[in-house]
């Protein structure tokens, strides 16, 4: 709260509240836990006050007022649930349902639909209109997004997202009055790297993502707080999971990182993730063949192999691995003699969200390149060149090795592969330790500006896959490197002790919105 601004005292539903001057009734009510129904108002967009759902009574005022734009005044007495306000709300709901198809049983928004919610709340079961409903069609607005015109309540949130946030005003209300609908001016499809946010802002099921269409009911989804792995921005997201698969991603509000938004690339990335052969059980090389093993045997074999090995350790890691995983691999390398670790980052064009320029789909299409750097790994173009003549231990963490040369790792005394997908090159390893994907475990990523953010487990990992911070810490303990970690938080605590980029941070401090270490911050301001 701005300490300069004046406080206004008012009463809402019988309770007094003080809020800074300029606050709207809607916001003031939220302070008291009173949620005034709204459609057109969205916290990230301008307020056109046009749906008229949020009308409340202000005592002594001639007409009900739209809470979303009406600012508080000293001594105001607001009633959000009196006869007048209820009548106004019932009226708006009735108007909206006049031509609404109420096809909830086949609507993607059912269960998360504001029209459903408020219609239930106002409890109107009987339809007063006998006139036939207007039937409109459906149409694509982008190659992936379908517009169901019948369901649209013309709140213009989608129009305003494209206008104010994307700053590509491609969507419009076409026609006027009851003939209005949403489309592009030219009736052609549009494409925009942040287009799918229009699906998120739509309060009903009028804009739906074809990729998700008819796949799942929203109430069947479990929601998990996570971080998008699509690029180094680190958008805060909620994973929507069902039957142990991620079926969709929705942005999770974080004013420092992504506000209410995220890009389309990130959503596609995660939903498509997990194609390919998963590593499900530990594998140990015996007589030239990789054979499945249980963890006890696999860890025995790893400890055995690392004990007394010569030539130091090199690693190739993936910048999508968590800080905790990268840290343990680093510790294992230290144990044998750290000889350098490297990673490569795939890249694509940067796409800034103009209306919230803190957010961009970053060139680095990996979530944790900053973390890898902070933990002592070096960014290179040629990951294979860095290990070509290496004779000691070679660790590979999560890197897919799709384009590995024929003789990859041939000279290494020991090749340990830690990862979730088993590529042909990984099969050359002496030991394979299967690990979960980011959606299957807890961990942290460090985004492009040094912000450390936590993601949490939303899926069961397949088979015997187990995070490396867990299995690796057992190996370390047996080699004399401290106690095994029992949680990702403990692994993080240890790394925060050791690496200044993380000093002072803990899982508790990071919370669900992330934090920047004091050391990293002062470093950033100094540079």
């Amino acid at each position: 709260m701005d300490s300069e601004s004046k406080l206004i005292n008012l009463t809402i539903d019988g309770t007094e509240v003080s809020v800074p001057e300029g606050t709207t009734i809607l916001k003031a009510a939220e302070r008291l836990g009173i949620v005034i129904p709204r459609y057109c108002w969205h916290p990230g967009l301008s307020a056109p006050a046009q749906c008229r759902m949020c009308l409340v009574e202000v005592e002594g005022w001639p007409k009900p007022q739209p809470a979303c734009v009406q600012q508080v005044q000293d001594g105001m007495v607001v009633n959000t649930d009196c006869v007048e306000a209820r009548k106004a709300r019932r009226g708006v709901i009735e108007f909206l349902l006049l031509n609404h198809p109420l096809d909830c049983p086949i609507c993607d928004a059912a269960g998360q639909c504001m029209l459903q919610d408020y219609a239930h709340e106002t409890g109107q079961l009987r339809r007063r209109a006998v006139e036939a409903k207007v039937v409109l069609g459906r149409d694509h607005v982008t190659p992936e997004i379908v517009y169901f015109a019948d369901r649209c309540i013309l709140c213009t949130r989608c129009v305003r997202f494209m206008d104010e946030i994307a700053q590509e005003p491609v969507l419009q209300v076409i026609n006027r009055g009851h003939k209005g609908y949403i489309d592009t001016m030219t009736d052609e499809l549009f494409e925009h790297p942040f287009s799918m946010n229009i699906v998120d802002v739509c309060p009903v099921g009028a804009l739906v993502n074809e990729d998700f269409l008819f796949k799942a009911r929203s109430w069947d989804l479990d929601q998990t707080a996570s971080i998008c792995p699509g690029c180094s921005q680190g958008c805060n997201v909620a994973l929507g999971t069902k039957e142990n698969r991620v079926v969709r991603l929705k942005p999770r509000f974080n004013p420092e990182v992504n506000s209410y938004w995220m890009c389309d690339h990130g959503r596609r990335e995660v939903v498509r993730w997990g194609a390919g052969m998963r590593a499900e059980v530990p594998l140990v090389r015996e007589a030239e063949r990789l054979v499945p093993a249980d963890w006890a045997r696999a860890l025995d074999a790893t400890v055995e192999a690392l004990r007394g090995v010569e030539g130091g350790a090199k690693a190739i890691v993936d910048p999508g691995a968590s800080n905790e995983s990268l840290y343990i691999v680093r510790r294992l390398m230290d144990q044998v003699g750290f000889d350098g670790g490297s990673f490569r980052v795939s890249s694509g064009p940067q796409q800034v969200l103009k209306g919230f320029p803190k957010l961009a789909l970053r060139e680095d299409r990996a979530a944790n390149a900053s973390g890898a750097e902070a933990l002592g790994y070096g960014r290179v173009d040629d990951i294979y060149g860095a290990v070509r003549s290496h004779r000691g231990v070679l660790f590979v963490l999560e890197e897919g090795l799709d384009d590995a040369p024929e003789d990859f790792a041939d000279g290494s005394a020991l090749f340990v592969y830690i990862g979730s997908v088993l590529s042909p090159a990984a099969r050359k390893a002496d030991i394979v330790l299967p690990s979960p994907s980011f959606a299957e475990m807890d961990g942290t990523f460090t985004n492009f500006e040094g912000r450390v953010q936590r993601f949490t487990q939303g899926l069961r990992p397949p088979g015997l896959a187990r995070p490396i911070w867990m299995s690796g810490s057992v190996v370390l303990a047996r080699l004399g490197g401290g106690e095994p970690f029992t949680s990702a938080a403990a692994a993080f605590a240890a790394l925060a002790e050791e690496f200044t980029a993380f000093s002072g941070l803990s899982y508790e401090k990071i919370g669900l919105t992330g934090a920047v270490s004091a050391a990293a911050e002062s470093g950033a301001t100094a540079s």
Partner: protein
Amino acid sequence: MAYPYEHPREERMLSRYFGEVDAIGIDGWIERGGYTALEKALGTAQDDVIQVVKDSGLRGRGGAGFPAGLKWSFMPKDGKAPSYVACNADESEPGTFKDRELMRWTPHQVIEGIIIASYAVRAQHAYIYIRGEFVDIVRVLNGAVVEAYERGYLGMNILGSGYDLDLTVHTGAGAYIAGEETGLLNSLEGRRAEPRVKPPFPAQKGAFGMPTTVNNVETLASVPHIVLNGADWYRQWGTEKSPGTKLFSCCGHLQRPGNYEVPLDFSLKELVYDLCGGPPEGRELLGVIPGGSSVPILTVDELDCEVSYEGIEAAGSFLGSGGLIAMDDSTCMVRAVRRMVEFYAHESCGQCTPCREGTSWLTKILRRIERGDGREEDIPLLLDVGSNMAGSTICPLSDSAAVPVVSSIQKFEDEYMAHIRDGSCTAKR
């Protein structure tokens, strides 16, 4: 050419030169004393011009009747930001056609008023926002603007006073809602003509985000007379709360429809029966809508009142824009109301749910009643839908749409019941 239906009982201040082709061009206008008010105004301090308009009691003729001088006084006086005057010439209220005549016959009367208003509120640019259908009037205005520039009434250093003003005629594309002042401003800016949420009011944040005064054509045309002759002179007509004269556009079932200018203390009944000659031979009047379709209908028994703002209000309606619509006993009230509501459904900008959906629902119910498929419960339904539409939206169009429905049910319920119960109509054809 005499203007149709002049009447000796009129008080023709604004309409004095209606019908005189010579008064249209600038020379003719100057011969008739044109632009002397402007000269006088430019020699007067801005605030004194505002004061005389305040003292005159001139009220906005666009419909709401807001005091013009008071509105002007809301404009910032520091001259820091660019500011504008917009002359509202969108005239689309059903039954209203007075601004059209003012611009057609006396374009310089309107322009002079605009220049004086702009000077008073310290605007640098003025616009005439005119409805696109007025193709011929646009031509007249554009010609007059060119003339005014040529004579130095517009442009840089007007009449050597140091005051600069540009005037642009901007045509709309034919939307009633572009006549609502903030819808007008959006349209002027090239956006959809959707009314804005107020506050902020145009004087705070108007065209292009800058302070703007919006006034009706007739309001502005009255200004030169007031500035030239003084507030007391203007107050010789009308009442304390409604000084001056006003044009009434009278149409419908009348013997002599047309524009009549009368003092605001004139009798409504005499306006209808004497000036307009009452209903056609052999007909009886059913009712009169005195101020455009957005105001409640009055029955013949309610006409015994003054045409002042307060007089018509006391009778149960509003002066509105002064668009008087008379309906005789050949009128099917259900059909007439359905037609009016259809207009609002067509013209609703569609932002507000109650207006967008309500206007179309009312239309459908009325159509059903009109064709004989009404139900008795439709009457309370119409009233309740009307009440849900009123007072709940960004602009008053939603209220306006409900007005004819509610007032006609209150006063002519029998006609509705005849349709509903017997599928018949009480209109005498």
